[in-house]
């Protein structure tokens, strides 16, 4: 028999405390106030004092409101009935459909035993050369899109979701703008993917604490589907909002902040979510793409910084393009060895040259005379940007590699590329052949 309490001792931020007995750490309670009911989660116990964070926020809660402990931690219903449905961050229907109560599963479960993991091996083709050639996306990868507001990061997420061959898409919105949510829906609908999509959407207008649930709910559901053999793509947008919600709670709980007000455990908090990305041997997988907007376009800000240390690379979306510098897929070497033999060398070589192009560009902007070499680099950079970097380019990996050789041979001599001779002999476009090392 669960006890009901009618006296709230303190209310600060979104945290309330009550005196209660027999309560477990992490347990849920229901707080009923004049404004309706809200769930709350136990976040600290000390003697008979219980602190809870209230999902709908503490606004309007009075000291005489009722707190009823439920005797279990946060759960979400899991079944195929979730498909095509839209829920709030707290797991309540947002689409006028029925509330799902069957087969409740706990969220935020234990991590996968590293000994049970396997080396990721399947490339996810996106048709975007900056991803496929330079930073291949791999099934079970966790990867953020670093960006700033105004950039088309949600469009990019939706495009990848449409193009990637996955069984199921779960979209977790965290402080998502309503328009953006509609945008996702339209894209998925137009692509006929809505029936294999599940939305857990916390919008900017919803209570902050509720956003804390979104990654856990989305990933718990994803995990179950993956265990049943589904290849699941989880999209989270925007994880910076999630981190900010953590910060708010930490400050309310008077935790000593570590960096710009964020709690010292920000890394562990983010990691426990991102690490849910996995490839289950003999079953399905979870691939995780998350938007992380960088406050002040500053990658050293604690949120992108901690994220970068956790994820398996990142895509920088800037000026509507995926930047080659800073963007990284750490898993690419697991898959790009089996694509085409020139893939790796071309990927490294073209980026090195692009770095030189940037230097030449800088020299030019400072008014220096351009050497013959600089002029070549400038041409190279421009071709690279228009034929490969532009997000409108939608070609297969192989076409993109051929394009790479074309660009090189349009601007440079073979020995200027820094590429190994055997590859040049094989892939250098024949009509532009030039004897290698004639002057040596």
């Amino acid at each position, binding site marked *: 028999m669960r006890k009901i309490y009618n006296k709230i001792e303190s209310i600060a931020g979104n945290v309330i405390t009550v005196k209660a007995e027999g309560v477990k750490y992490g347990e849920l309670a229901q707080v009923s106030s004049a404004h309706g009911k809200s769930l709350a989660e136990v976040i600290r116990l000390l003697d008979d004092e219980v602190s809870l964070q209230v999902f709908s926020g503490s606004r309007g809660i009075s000291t005489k409101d009722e707190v009823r402990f439920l005797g279990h931690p946060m759960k979400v219903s899991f079944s195929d009935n979730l498909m095509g449905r839209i829920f709030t961050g707290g797991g309540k229907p947002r689409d006028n459909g029925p509330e799902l109560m069957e087969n409740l599963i706990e969220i935020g479960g234990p991590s996968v035993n590293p*000994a049970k993991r396997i080396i990721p091996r399947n490339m996810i083709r996106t048709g975007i050369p900056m991803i496929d050639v330079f930073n291949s996306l791999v099934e079970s990868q966790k990867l953020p899109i670093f960006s700033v507001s105004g950039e088309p990061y949600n469009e990019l997420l939706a495009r990848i979701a449409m193009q990637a061959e996955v069984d199921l898409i779960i979209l977790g919105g965290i402080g998502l703008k309503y328009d953006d949510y509609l945008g996702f829906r339209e894209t998925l609908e137009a692509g006929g993917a809505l029936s294999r999509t599940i939305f857990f959407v916390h919008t900017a207008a919803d209570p902050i604490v509720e956003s804390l649930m979104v990654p856990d709910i989305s990933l718990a559901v994803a995990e179950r589907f993956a265990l049943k053999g589904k290849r699941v793509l989880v999209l989270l947008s925007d994880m910076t909002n999630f981190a900010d919600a953590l910060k708010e709670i930490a400050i309310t709980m008077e935790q000593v902040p570590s960096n710009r007000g964020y709690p010292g455990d920000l890394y562990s908090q983010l990691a426990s979510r991102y690490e849910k990305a996995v490839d289950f041997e003999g079953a399905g997988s979870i691939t995780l793409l998350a938007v992380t907007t960088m406050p002040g376009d500053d990658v050293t800000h604690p949120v992108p910084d901690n994220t970068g*240390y956790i994820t398996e690379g990142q895509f920088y979306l800037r000026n509507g393009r995926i930047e080659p510098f800073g963007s990284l897929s750490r898993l690419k070497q697991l898959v790009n060895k089996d694509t085409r033999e020139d893939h790796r060398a071309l990927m490294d070589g073209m980026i090195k040259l692009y770095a030189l192009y940037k230097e030449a560009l800088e020299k030019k902007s400072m008014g220096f005379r351009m050497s013959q*070499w600089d002029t070549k680099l400038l041409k190279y950079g421009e071709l690279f940007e228009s034929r490969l970097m532009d997000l409108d380019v939608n070609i297969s990996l192989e076409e993109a590699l051929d394009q790479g050789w074309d660009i090189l041979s349009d601007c440079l001599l073979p020995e200027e590329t820094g590429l190994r001779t055997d590859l040049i002999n094989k892939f250098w476009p024949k009509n532009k052949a030039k004897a290698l090392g004639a002057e040596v």
Partner: protein
Amino acid sequence: MSSRSIGKVVGVNGNMVTCESEDKVLMNEVGYIVTGDKRLKAEVIRIRGNRSELQVFEMTRGIGIGDEVEFTQELLAVELGPGLIGQIFDGLQNPLPQVAEKCGFFLERGVYLPSLPKELRFEFTPLLKPGDMVERGDTIGTVPEGIFTHQIMVPFNLFGKFKIKSIKSKAEYSIRDTICELENEKGNIIPISMVFEWPVKRPIDVYQEKLKPTEPLATKVRIVDTLFPVALGGTYCVPGPFGAGKTVLQQITSRYAEVDIVIIAACGERAGEVVETLREFPELIDPRTGKTLMERTIIICNTSSMPVAAREASVYTAVTLAEYYRQMGLNILLLADSTSRWAQAMREMSGRLEEIPGEEAFPAYLESVIASFYERAGIVRFKDGRKGSVTIGGTVSPAGGNFEEPVTQATLKVVGAFHGLSRERSDARRFPAIHPLESWSKYAGAVAPDKVAYVSSVLFRGNEVDQMMKVVGEEGTSIDDYIIFLKSEFFDAVYLQQNAFDPVDASTTIIRQRFIFDWIIWILLGEFNLQEKNKAREYFNNLRQLFLDWNGCEWESDEFKSFESKIKQSLESNLTESFKSIQEAAGKRFKDQGRG
């Protein structure tokens, strides 16, 4: 066992539990929190009156006020004995593959399995006989453990002199069988098996003398071995922003380093990275032994989503195992990735304890804790004259990639070498991204120091010219300066940069390093018939190309030799003097023709 102490949970805050007990409680002892049908391991980290705080090595969800706490009166310890090599443990020495067999895909709370199960059997060969006198650390016999002769030693926690009362004859035994009985001065009999325990936070101190690390440890990474060497028994750190290449550098080091045993402490980083190691090592043959790499590796794995308190313990578990094998006269390399996650685990706990925070909320004792961890490295001499070493290399993940932060700074104060990774270099794909001008090492390397000094000076000048060119442009730079710049870029491209994913280039032996380095010296010393910048650039591009191809050839293969002669030809036709005279000049200029 005396009557055990018992307590009750009175508070839960994250992974910290407050407990009230009227019984005796020991600082840093292990306690179990009994919640439902689970017993969750925890460590006492503060005692105030009858209340103590414990850090719980598991998720604390579901713990309630009034749950029972059982104290063990024992410090957090690891089991030492044959059979550790090749295993994959979590931070508390739980064997993860066995946990997986029992629990499936997910880690389950409260499941603790023996690190060295009694089913393990080894053939014991006694080295001593009844009546012999022994003390702690003395070898009483050996067992074969893979490629090693594992020494069975008198447990390090048995102080005093003992007489061997009985010792088993040569045969196979379970590691838990009594193989020897010791008699102390009072006539008490102490049975010993092949296994004993040692508390992780206490350094193993059974040796005569700690020596100065002088002998180079070959990592096969050129920039490390040549410019910023590591010594056997030394310490080094690899700080760098995310994605700069810390883990890849450690991975290749763990494969190719010339040591007996590598212990990998994956501390709070990605699980996927450990998986690469634990799936690949059993397949990769170590050319030095002909056996798989796994047979010289132990993995301690407490990745970022595993409980934070166990992460803190994991580096100690790793270093204790390293010290244990050092006692057998072996050279151990401990690679910890990342020490910042360990420091953060301390920070989390310190915050929960409401200690007064230092910079960036790290505890005030951060520096001393880091210092005492690296202090556990060293090369030591035992009383029989043998030596053994523990070398520690730790990555550091500074917030914002800025080295002016507490963990990097505290680490730099105590290590012997600093391999600083730079974002600039990793963005430009100049891997390994160790910054050649900012890094340093206090150890002597395998390549002659005067040669290294000369090449470094060219590198330095090249960088100056580069900086200057950014201001005055290429046209404002003299051809001589421009060539210095090209030479330093050349050296960077063909020597400092090394392709971790190329089967040959990934590791360069010391012999090959010395050999190639001499070629570099000749080229840097040489004066070239290049009057025009475009021509000069073209020439060095070609030369770079030849060297890159050369780097991909097996040592002393026909292909290798053919590139060598191509390069020689190219030099001969472009130098102002004969190639031979450059070689002679170098021979005179550098007295030291390399060591060993």
